[in-house]
């Protein structure tokens, strides 16, 4: 059975989504559990795959329908794709478990369709990561995008318009990629990545191949919302329901960057990408613009999820800039950031889900007094925020470490400056939220017997949720004087435990980033990059 692992990873979610779509019509609870089981199986098999690849050190090749490489479609799972597989299936699995309640309320009697699309989206991403065929990648890209449009389309009142813009730009991006594959096909006659990699070096100076590279890259840049073409991302991620945003935000841009890495390194060999074309200066300039724009506009946002979307645009800038530095540190920083950023964004969007569940709206200003009300969630959120800012023990710092040292090695000091600048802006962003969450409105300090500034202790309106005055554990029992009962109201356990698990994962990822780089990413980067 283990020889069929690559097939299992993709086929189990696909079959499960079909069964879930059908089951939705008979019983409203079944689709959710089908989806969860399927994602779990897919996660386990991708972990086994990663273990197998790391153990043997050689890429696994799986021929679909039994036909060898150039003729049929072949799955190639090397270190890089195995790692990204694990990330995708993990994020999808945790996000689904964490939002069981939200799914029931928001998608009332459409659970079958929702769960099917959810699993199809994951299957699309998994297929894209594992495939070794350029055209097959386009088909899976379309599956992921279409199910993404559907998942995002059902949200707030403005969601359809935002999704329509996302659809238009997404289609332009995907079709440009298709055109790029077409140009490759007309020049070489083959669609298989490995096969193309052997043909391209022989026709280095043909303008068709050059244009294929440019148009492919433009298409992917549109899909990953880099600065000039980012228009669709903030609307799409902030207007949609939190469940779908929790799935799509951490994954779409990261997997598109994985595809860019795959194409630039495996299809157009590094000698071609960095030797012949050498797009470092232009791409790093675009990345710097994207980082600065993303950070500054995130500063101006009032809405929490919209702020996160602009941070994602900045993170895309990190990865694109890091990758196109061209040296080993930069590229491994970009790849490590794919893993770290997916985990961070998942944690932040789950936190957004909990905040919306708690306060009912998405404004940052309504997060008043959350430290007292739900200390564990806020502790997790602080960890995730620190990871985005880049504070050492968390994973965000270490991918920044590689990116910055890559930037210094490549002499791109503007990129290094942009990274530092965006870390500072992130610090301001999140500490603004900590401030709001820390300082309850009704808090005032009593001066015992102090004549000068006799501040009479006004109790003000004690913000305690009217609907929730139950005998929760009196948090400030040990407080000597009471200034209004602070009622602990943590979110329900199935929502809280996955979230805290992800936040702890951020720490673990940070501490073990060294070993991730050494025995996974080190082999993922071809020797062509020094």
């Amino acid at each position, binding site marked *: 059975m283990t020889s069929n692992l690559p097939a299992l990873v993709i086929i189990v979610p696909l079959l499960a989504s079909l069964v879930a779509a059908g089951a939705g019509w008979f019983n409203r609870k079944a689709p959710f559990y089908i989806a969860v089981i399927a994602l779990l199986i897919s996660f386990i098999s991708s972990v086994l795959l990663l273990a197998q690849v790391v153990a043997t050190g050689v890429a696994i090749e799986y021929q679909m329908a039994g036909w060898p490489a150039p003729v049929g479609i072949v799955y190639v799972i090397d270190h890089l794709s195995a790692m990204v597989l694990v990330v995708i299936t993990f994020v999808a699995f945790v996000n689904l478990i964490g939002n069981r309640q939200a799914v029931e309320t928001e998608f009332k009697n459409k659970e079958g369709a929702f769960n099917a699309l959810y699993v199809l989206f994951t299957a699309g991403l998994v297929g894209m990561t594992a495939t070794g065929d350029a055209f097959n990648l386009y088909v899976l890209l379309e599956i992921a995008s279409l199910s993404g449009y559907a998942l995002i389309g059902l949200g707030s009142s403005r969601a359809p318009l935002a999704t*329509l813009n996302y*659809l238009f730009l997404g289609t*332009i991006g995907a079709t440009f990629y298709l055109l790029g594959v*077409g140009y490759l096909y*007309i020049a070489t006659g083959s669609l298989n990545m490995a096969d193309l990699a052997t043909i391209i070096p022989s026709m280095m100076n043909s303008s068709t191949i050059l244009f294929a590279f440019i148009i492919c890259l433009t298409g992917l840049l549109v899909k990953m919302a880099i600065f000039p073409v980012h228009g669709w991302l903030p609307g799409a991620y902030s207007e949609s329901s939190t469940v779908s945003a929790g799935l799509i935000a951490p994954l779409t841009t990261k997997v598109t960057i994985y595809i860019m890495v795959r194409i630039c390194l495996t299809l157009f060999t590094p000698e071609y990408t960095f030797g012949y074309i050498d797009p470092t200066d232009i791409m790093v300039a675009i990345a710097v613009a994207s980082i600065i724009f993303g950070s500054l506009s995130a500063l101006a946002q009032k809405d929490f999820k919209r702020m996160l979307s602009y941070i994602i645009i900045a993170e895309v800038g990190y990865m694109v800039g890091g990758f196109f530095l061209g040296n080993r540190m930069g590229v491994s920083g970009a790849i490590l950031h794919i893993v770290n950023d997916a985990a961070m964004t998942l944690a932040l969007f789950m936190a957004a889900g909990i905040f919306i569940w708690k306060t009912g709206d998405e404004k940052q200003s309504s997060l008043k007094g959350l430290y007292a009300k739900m200390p564990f969630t806020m502790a997790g959120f602080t960890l995730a925020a620190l990871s985005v800012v880049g504070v050492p023990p968390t994973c965000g710092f270490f991918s920044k470490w590689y990116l910055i040292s890559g930037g210094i090695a490549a002499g791109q000091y503007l990129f290094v400056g942009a990274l530092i600048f965006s870390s500072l802006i992130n610090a301001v962003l999140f500490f603004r939220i900590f401030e709001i969450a820390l300082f309850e409105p009704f808090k005032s300090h009593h001066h015992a017997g102090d004549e000068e500034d006799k501040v009479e202790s006004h109790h003000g309106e004690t913000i305690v949720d009217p609907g929730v005055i139950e005998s929760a554990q009196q948090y400030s029992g040990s407080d000597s004087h009471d200034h209004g009962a602070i009622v602990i109201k943590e979110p329900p356990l199935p929502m809280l435990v996955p979230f805290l698990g992800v936040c702890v994962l951020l720490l673990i990822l940070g501490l073990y980033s060294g070993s991730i780089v050494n025995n996974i990413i080190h082999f993922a980067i071809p020797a062509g990059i020094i």
Partner: protein
Amino acid sequence: MELFSFIVAKADYWAYVILMMVGLYALIAKNNLVKKIVGMTIFQTAIILFYVSIGYKKGATIPILHHGSDHGGEALAAHGAHAAAHGTQEVAEQAAHAVAHAGEAAVKAMDYINPLPHVLMLTAIVVGVATLGVALALAMKVYKEYGTLEEDEINQQLRNG
């Protein structure tokens, strides 16, 4: 003259470029959402035209192996199909072997056009239809929400909404 022959030789590819630019322009610059959707479809069709034009070979027929051309083959093929229908093992074996042998000599790649782009474009057409369906569904929801399909009116409502 060299320029002119160059243009003539490549002129056929220009058709897809022009079509693609029309589609792209409509997608970017048009105000009405449905016109944008139409532009998107034109844009995707242009790519389909490009792919199919790659597969064309002068003087080749459609990629279906004519039974007529190798008479024996056709009889054998019919015979083979007939035998398969009966499910008799050894007769089918023999028929299939004969067909393979006959096919070897008769089929030359030159006679048939390249089938691969056609397969790919089947997929692209289907993807185009699917995207069109979802886009129309979304446009309908936008219309239900804002009462208009003109982008500037929608933005107006958003600004003072």
